[in-house]
């Protein structure tokens, strides 16, 4: 076991998979010589050379579209989109092409690509370097969407994503890159896609979250503990395919569910979880399925006053837990 930051775990995951599988390549803007703007790919260029670690032109649709084609001819591309905010130029390639290659060809062709992108706010990134874009992709059959919250999961899930036979979007919260540390086994391990984690066991309220919010949910649970509110926390980890069982079992036990997400509330990913719980655990509910999410303004404003206003924090989550517990 060694302690790693989130970014270190990701870097190791990339390195280990590239060592293991010669068909893997990394491509994206500044991923080579510079090692990525967050240094996620630092060292890969030196170790694997410019043929397998490609500094691409500034063209996201190309990065994804070329990955799709390369994956049909024997490679396993691992693409980096510099910021999740800049994945939209590649939206057509991801949604119309990557997600449907297998279905539309009736299984003749697959699309084993991994697309990594840093997401999330709280880093003075403003409107275009702070977004949580998961809901635009979790609605798409054919795509898998992963958001890790610990170094252990990040490395283990990244390994599974790269080895997966379908396109996986792998979103990493940039605020967690260096602020979150944790143990990572030295040896080979992986974390399966499609399994949520119960990160805290409790009896009264189930809080479902992912990414940075999975940490804030735990902090919030701590805060209300001495108020004798027992909170169970679930880290979704894989948003699609969703581990419905883990979430439903928990809510059937606690009878109350709070869904927390960093994105805009209206039409966000948490709406699907809330709707699913409301539909499938209705008989067990002792209170409304609640959601705590970002306000419905376009994205995180830059000025610190506005940014602080936009971003969720443990206290706001704790407040919602108290309301729900008191319900």
């Amino acid at each position: 076991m060694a302690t790693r930051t989130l970014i270190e775990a990701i870097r190791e995951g990339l390195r280990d998979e590239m060592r293991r599988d010669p068909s893997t390549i990394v491509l994206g803007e500044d991923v080579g010589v510079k090692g990525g703007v967050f240094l996620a790919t630092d060292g890969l260029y030196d170790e694997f050379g410019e043929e397998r670690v490609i500094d691409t032109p500034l063209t996201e649709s190309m990065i994804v579209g070329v990955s799709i084609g390369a994956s049909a001819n024997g490679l396993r591309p691992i693409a980096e989109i510099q910021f999740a905010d800049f994945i939209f130029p590649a939206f057509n390639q991801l949604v119309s092409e990557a997600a449907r290659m297998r279905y539309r060809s009736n299984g003749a062709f697959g699309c084993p690509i991994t697309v990594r992108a840093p997401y999330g706010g709280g880093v003075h990134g403003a409107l275009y370097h702070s977004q949580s874009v998961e809901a635009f992709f979790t609605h798409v059959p054919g795509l898998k969407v992963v958001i890790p919250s610990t170094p252990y999961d990040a490395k283990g899930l990244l390994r599974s994503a790269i080895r997966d036979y379908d396109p996986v979007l792998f979103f990493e919260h940039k605020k967690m890159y260096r602020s979150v540390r944790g143990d990572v086994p030295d040896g080979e391990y992986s974390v399966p896609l499609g399994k949520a984690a119960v990160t805290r066991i409790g009896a009264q309220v189930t809080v479902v979250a992912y990414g940075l919010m999975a940490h804030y949910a735990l902090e919030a649970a701590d805060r209300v503990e001495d108020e004798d509110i027992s909170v169970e926390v679930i880290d979704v980890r894989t948003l699609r395919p969703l581990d419905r069982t883990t979430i439903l079992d928990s809510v059937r036990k606690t009878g109350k569910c709070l869904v927390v997400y960093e994105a805009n509330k209206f039409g966000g990913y948490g709406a699907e979880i809330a709707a699913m719980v409301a539909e499938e655990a209705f008989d067990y509910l002792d209170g409304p399925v609640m959601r705590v999410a970002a306000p419905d303004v376009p994205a995180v404003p830059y000025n610190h006053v506005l940014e602080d206003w936009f971003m969720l924090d443990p206290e706001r989550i704790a407040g919602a837990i108290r309301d729900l517990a008191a319900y």
Partner: protein
Amino acid sequence: MTTTASETDGPVGSAGQPGGDRSRLAESLGLTDDDLRLMYRRVALARAIDERMWVLNRAGRVPFVISGQGHEGAQVGIVSNLRPGLDWLVPFYRSVAGVLTFGMSAREIMLAQYAKAPDPSSGGRQMPGHYGGSAHNILSTSSPVGTQILHAVGLALAAKIRRTGQVVVTALGEGASNQGDFHEGMNFAGLHKLPVITVIENNGYAISVPAAKQAPIVDLADRAAGYGMPGLVVDGADVVGCWRAGHEAVERARRGEGPTIIEAKVTRLTAHSSDDQQTKYRTPEELERERLRDPLPCFREQLLEAGVLSSELVERIAAEIAAEVNDATDWAEQQPDPTVDSATRHVYAEDPA
């Protein structure tokens, strides 16, 4: 030139005097007369299948047709230079002749037209014209135009990195060439000198929008210079000229010297699709005039003059094609529809291993 399985014991082989005399034309191309007859047969077969599609549509047997009448010469001429089984083709909805040349059979094309369960392109899931098939190295294609360019470039990138010696040919319309994906794909292909040939089949229309309202230049191949690659313009009615351009481009790619854009000036002999009324935007005079640019009669005349074809052989080929198209139609029509229980399959990989 490589023939594909379905063709080896075709009429052409029997037609050419084995090892026999070689026409000047064939000689000038470094081909045999049989090669030229095979190309003619492909153009004629594609046309016959295509015309059958429209007949079936008018008869109400298939709800939709989109096809390539007028484009066959460019497709056969260029794709004939590829090596089936090694190279890749990333077609578009007009590539009937292209996929035939690259190994698809008339039956397989008709399966797509009828959207039957055994359809190798999509198992009846996609509209007709969305050809693909792993058995033939024809990548599955979608409807949003231009996206396939990037897939072709990606296939070529993998070919270069894996040193497979593969060459990739992709095709699109002139309208699609204005899409952003074209720019991004050509830039990357030129940058890495990838073995990919991009064929712009310029038929002068994007549905109803004429070339003059699509781009400010006449020859889209001129854009190749901006991507550091050669751009060739060929007359789509000149099948031999298309073969020459394809040969030059494929050889260059095979030598590792990078990509080429070939713009083939073709004509669209039908409406855009069975849903389109082209008389609303094309005059009878224009439609009449365009018939002169039909590659089928042009190629036939050329080969007759060159002594590669005889009227007897033309008739024999026509008869054989008619039989082939009838067989493909009847056979495909009898194949089963996909079943409901198959509908949820292949959203994700089924057994990763």
